[in-house]
């Protein structure tokens, strides 16, 4: 590196771009991640609007519906039950929006700046997914702060468990979004697609109602919905820290079953992680292609 600080203006402060290495790749991941954060925290409006919907579900829909079963279900408020579902909802929208920014980047050209850089394409995709996961988890944390208002205790163990699960979910959702975004040319189509998939996924995830005693067609649909496997462990974690009778717990958190077999939380989380990694792999492959 032949740089000389004392050199006057016409002197060439020449930089040499180093060979590709793991360290360089990590720097690339980090800067792509950092950009997501800078953009997210600069856009206060987006932060606010994407929080509005989950809060509406939790406090308006949740409160309204609980009047149907006065006194709650087994002494438990519907809002407490819905809390993990609303948590996942908050991250769902933010993570999708983050992933969608790839379409935006393509439309506004910034993607090209990243694609001609002498780094592995995978670093850009990984940085993007981690960035989306971070900001989506951050949105989740804001909802998490409201836990006390709906009767969920602020236990450190619970908070940590939920945080970890949120991070995993956010990563998988972002990776899925990036995979879709890689093929889509404009923002309208991306959001049309997201709208088409997101609401059904949310409604079929058990975020709003228990998964037991459903008619069989709904049983099947909920079982093939990946989001189900993220919401269920979060709900179990919450109920582990609640003081409820075994009967109530059984009625509300029977968990996900496959032909009568109870799927353990660790396997559910492994499924979410596995889907995330597959989506990440597909995204990387898509971005590696040159025309």
């Amino acid at each position, binding site marked *: 590196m032949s740089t000389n600080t004392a050199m006057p203006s016409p002197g060439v402060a020449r930089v040499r771009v180093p060979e590709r290495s793991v360290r360089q790749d990590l720097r690339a991941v980090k800067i792509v991640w950092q950009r997501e954060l800078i953009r997210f925290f600069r856009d206060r409006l987006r932060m606010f609007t994407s929080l509005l919907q989950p809060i509406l579900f939790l406090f308006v829909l949740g409160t309204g519906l609980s009047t149907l079963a006065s006194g709650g279900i087994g002494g438990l408020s519907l809002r407490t039950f819905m809390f993990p579902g609303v948590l996942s909802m908050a991250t769902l929208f933010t993570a999708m929006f983050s992933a969608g920014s790839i379409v935006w980047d393509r439309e506004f050209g910034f993607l090209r*700046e990243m694609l*001609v850089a002498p780094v592995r394409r995978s670093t850009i995709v990984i940085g993007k997914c981690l960035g989306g996961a971070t900001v989506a988890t951050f949105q989740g944390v804001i909802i998490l702060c409201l836990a006390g208002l709906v009767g969920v205790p602020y236990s450190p163990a619970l908070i940590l468990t939920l945080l970890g699960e949120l991070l995993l979910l956010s990563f998988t959702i972002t990776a899925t979004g990036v995979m879709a975004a890689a093929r889509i040319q404009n923002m309208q189509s991306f959001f049309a697609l997201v709208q088409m998939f997101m609401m059904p996924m949310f409604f079929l995830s058990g975020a709003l109602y228990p998964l037991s005693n459903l008619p069989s067609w709904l049983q099947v649909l909920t079982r093939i919905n990946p989001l189900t496997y993220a919401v269920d462990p979060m709900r179990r974690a919450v109920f582990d820290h609640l003081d409820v009778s075994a009967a109530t717990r059984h009625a509300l958190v029977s968990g996900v079953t496959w032909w009568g077999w109870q799927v353990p939380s660790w396997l559910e989380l492994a499924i979410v992680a596995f889907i995330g990694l597959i989506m990440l792999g597909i995204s990387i492959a898509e971005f590696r292609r040159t025309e």
Partner: protein
Amino acid sequence: MRKIDVSADGGVKVKQPAVSVRGLAKRYGKVEAVRGIDFEVAPGEIFGFLGPNGAGKTTTINMLCTLANPSAGSAAVAGHDVVSERDEVRRNIGLVFQDTTLDNYLSAEQNLRFHAELYGMPRSVLPERMRRVLEMVGLWERRKSLVGTFSGGMKRRLEIARGLLHSPRVLFLDEPTIGLDPQTRSSIWNYIEELKRSEDITIFLTTHYMDEAEYCDRIAIMDSGRIVVLDTPEALKASVGKDRVQIETEDDAAAIEALGRQFGVEAEIHEGSVTFAVAQGEQFVPRLFAGLGVPIRSVSVSRPSLDDVFMSYTGTTIRDAEASASDHMRMFMRARR
């Protein structure tokens, strides 16, 4: 094809070409965007690709900067093959695209920092290098501002600064002045010329502005995916030799017919006026008035320009070639000097 004398800069050492292209072609489905082109660019040269929109200039640049794979042929940039040594090429080139590729939600400084990290620039040299490129394009004072608040010209300048940040050996500028006002265009050219003086760099650019091509050391004229001619602007103009005369008449068809019959001159209608080329145009004009027999409303005579070069090699003016272009600014082609 003439070779440029590279020893002009002191003749220090024999250098490999900055860009070397052999039989390069690109096909998109049935469309042949580039149909086999060959050329070399010497280090330190300002090399221009001139041609109408759709001639294949951008496709060629995309192949040279590893964004598109050639369908046939090969190309090397800074001594590295664009297909097999893609990363090497990417490390050694800077790019300024036709459309802006900045992040509007980041500040000027953050955009540059993003670039520096992505290119793995040593952190110790970054502040100085950043200051240098930003000062060069006159944006140092605005470094903290969000790029979204910049004008089109400022964005283009920032992109040039970013393209230079990692000291590339070849800087590609795809239509660097498109869509900018004349004043900003000329300031962009000042930067490019300063660059040539102060940085050890080769500049490869495309343009469809004829007047801009004159800033280049050598020009390749491209039309329908082929290079029709490649030479210095002076040599190209000399090769045309004749002056261009444009006349407005009461009856263009009769005028064209009369020109052929009376003077043996082949005329065509370009940009709304009867256009033809003759040696020593000024002396031809009096004879024209005396012998044409069709009332003439106006006459303009121009020394050979690159427009004429383009016309004589492609049979059409660049404006006619892209009639859709919205920037019709002048009715008459005027002599530049």
